[in-house]
């Protein structure tokens, strides 16, 4: 039983946390892709930017959350979302829109987004430095231990993890309702299906583009903040987040928000399972194994330092066998 609890703590919980983060990142990437038709590489840095804004606000008002009984960062999250959305729209107006107006190839947009990545990275690290910082300023992370009768090891959940699960569910359900019920959401889907037809039928495409950036910026801020709340704010995380997020978006089928969520959890769990040391689970049956099998101490599929191989492997496998993704995205 102890081993199962260990498995729960280190795989189920950790995998869900990573999955939630990747899912929200991948939804943003996939939405931008389906509306604007290019892979937005600056997404991970938009996450960092949003988190950084939240961190600054938290440092300014460290006790704002006490009244509500929530971490201050959560209270500051909406402000950070608004700010990041505005920045995202501003970046679009300043850099992407002129290129779109020139009708450049998508790959040029990709290079432009790499330029935006560097700008954001440089700007954030210029002010934040490169060290890790905790989002709990003047506060303590609450840790819940749930004891199960008959087992020595408790189930461990932290406050940010619970908040993360709740917020993810709310965000995903909200986004789904928005895309399927609201007028603007339907217009968004129409534009992702066929931009020319959408424009011809009187949809304000400019408004849709703006809306896409607002949603993507908001989701990026949520994902980045909750990730940093759980671990710490690391300004140089972006290239390591980028690959899993894109792998998730492609696995789910590019341009397919629900697929991106599934892909996010798939990649998140795959990563966690790959670095998990399986010999822990085999320990109870070690004595009953035949003597010629010698269990090594470390049965992890890849070491933690090679974690980034996992999303890459998934990406390659999907590109080889099913380039449209599991949910049949629109475009290869």
């Amino acid at each position, binding site marked *: 039983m102890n081993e199962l609890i260990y498995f729960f703590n280190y795989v189920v919980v950790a995998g869900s946390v990573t999955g939630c983060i990747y899912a929200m990142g991948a939804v943003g990437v996939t939405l931008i892709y389906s509306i604007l038709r290019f892979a937005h*590489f600056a997404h991970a840095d938009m996450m960092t930017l949003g988190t950084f804004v939240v961190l600054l606000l938290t440092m300014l008002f460290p006790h704002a959350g006490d009244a509500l009984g929530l971490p201050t960062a959560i209270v500051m999250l909406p402000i950070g979302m608004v700010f990041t959305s505005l920045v995202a729209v501003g970046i679009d107006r300043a850099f992407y829109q002129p290129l779109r107006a020139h009708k450049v190839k998508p790959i040029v947009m*990709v290079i432009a987004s790499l*330029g935006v990545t560097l700008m954001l990275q440089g700007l954030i690290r210029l002010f934040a430095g490169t060290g890790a910082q905790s989002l709990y300023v003047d506060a303590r992370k609450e840790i819940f231990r749930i004891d199960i009768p008959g087992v020595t090891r408790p189930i461990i959940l932290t406050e940010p993890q619970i908040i993360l699960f709740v917020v993810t569910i709310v965000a995903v359900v909200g986004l789904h309702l928005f895309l399927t019920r609201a007028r603007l959401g339907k217009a968004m889907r129409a534009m992702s299906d066929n931009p020319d037809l959408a424009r011809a039928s009187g949809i304000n495409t400019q408004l849709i583009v703006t809306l896409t950036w607002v949603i993507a910026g908001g989701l990026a801020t949520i994902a980045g903040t909750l990730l940093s709340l759980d671990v710490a704010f690391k300004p140089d995380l972006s290239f390591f987040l980028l690959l899993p997020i894109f792998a998730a978006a492609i696995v789910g089928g590019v341009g397919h928000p629900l697929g991106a969520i599934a892909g996010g959890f798939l990649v998140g769990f795959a990563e966690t399972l790959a670095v998990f040391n399986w010999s822990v689970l085999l320990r109870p049956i070690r004595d009953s194994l035949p003597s010629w099998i010698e269990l090594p101490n470390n049965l992890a599929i890849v070491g933690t330092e090679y974690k980034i191989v996992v999303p890459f492997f998934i990406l390659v496998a999907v590109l080889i066998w099913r380039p449209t993704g599991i949910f049949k995205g629109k475009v290869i």
Partner: protein
Amino acid sequence: MNDSDSTSQPRRSTPQPSQNASQHRRDAPALARPTLPLRELVLFGGLAVIVLGVFSMMGPAYATRMLVEASCYAILALGLTIQWGYAGQFNAGIMGFVALGGFSATFFSIPVNHAFWQSDLPARLGWVLLAIIAVVAIVFAITRLDRIGVPKLLRTILAVVAGLIGYLVVVSWLRSVTGDIESQVEFIGGLGLPVWLGWIVGGALAGGIGYVIGHICLGLRSDYLVIATLGIAEIIKAFLKNSDWLTRGTATISPLPWPVPTPGDVGFLSARAFYLAVTVVMIAVIFFLLHRAYHAPWGRMIRAIRDNEVSAAAMGKSINRRRQEIFVFGCILMGVGGAALTSFNGIFDPQGYLPLNHTFLVLVMVILGGPGNNLGTLFGAVLVYVIWIMSGPLALALMHLVTALGGDWFGWQPGNLDSRALQARVFVIGLLILMVLRFAPRGLIPEKVAQHD
């Protein structure tokens, strides 16, 4: 770049808005009088003045070092210009290929570690390598079981299970051997062979990785290639950084031998000048070959595919084969350039390979100089590198000024100014990429697109 992409397709049939039209007008006289390349002369003259300025201000030894590094970067930039400029494939993982080339140069040239070769470790390592080959062979054989009528699902399951078990066995075996290597002899050392052999093999290694990546991605959307190259670069770096038994990891390897007399024998200036001679000869050879290839039927075919894939396919050109070729060629150049750069630096430090220095700087060189134009790429490489090197002290001075003001006005007191000054340069590089894409998409010395009316 984007303009040159659209040159061949819509321009003649549909009159596009003013921008394309003006571009057309600008092209026409340039082709009518090809005798006086005024733009090139002025730009290269200006570059020569800048370089001479560096020579007089910083001393010849420093300036020669800068030129050697710039010439190594020029090889990288030529690699990217054939991928991006000739064929429209964008490679965001130059860093990985550079690191691979650097590793190969290091591994071939540093002295042999006799302690390793006299122990039983080489034999054990050899057995592990054999086991890896055996596992691959078994998995491959299982995928071929359809010849005796095994159904597809069963085949897949068997292959996955066999692969997983084989992988776990081999990896735990490898871990024990590499652990012993690290504890007994530190690392496996080098081969003690001439440096240039390492450079060639570095190019070949990079080309091999490029072949695999290209094979997977080139038939798909161009964005996927960017993601995959970005990923492979990080993986190569992680591998080199964490394989202490192979590369000493973060402990770094130095000094690295040079293909020419080292500073210890003939002094800094002459040694660097010899090295510069080697790299310049390499560039000249590469430049000549690229020039011939560009104007050959093969080059025309490559550009036809870039500019209008559908019609090139309709003409019976094998698009994916050509893309594959060009991607591998570019990667080979990056491997060779990276090997030359690492040898010159004299230290192999896997953590020293940064996306900024080894990917995005090269990107700026190419798009600023003129993608698809070899001369423009060379110009861009030297210019951007000189600016990059010179901007270091400038950014630091600027940071001191800003923090002094910031401290006075807002009480902002950041530490570690060096790294922050570097970040300011990151910002400028990003802004530069966006500005070039927006205002000079064809670079300072644009590709000359021949028009036959």
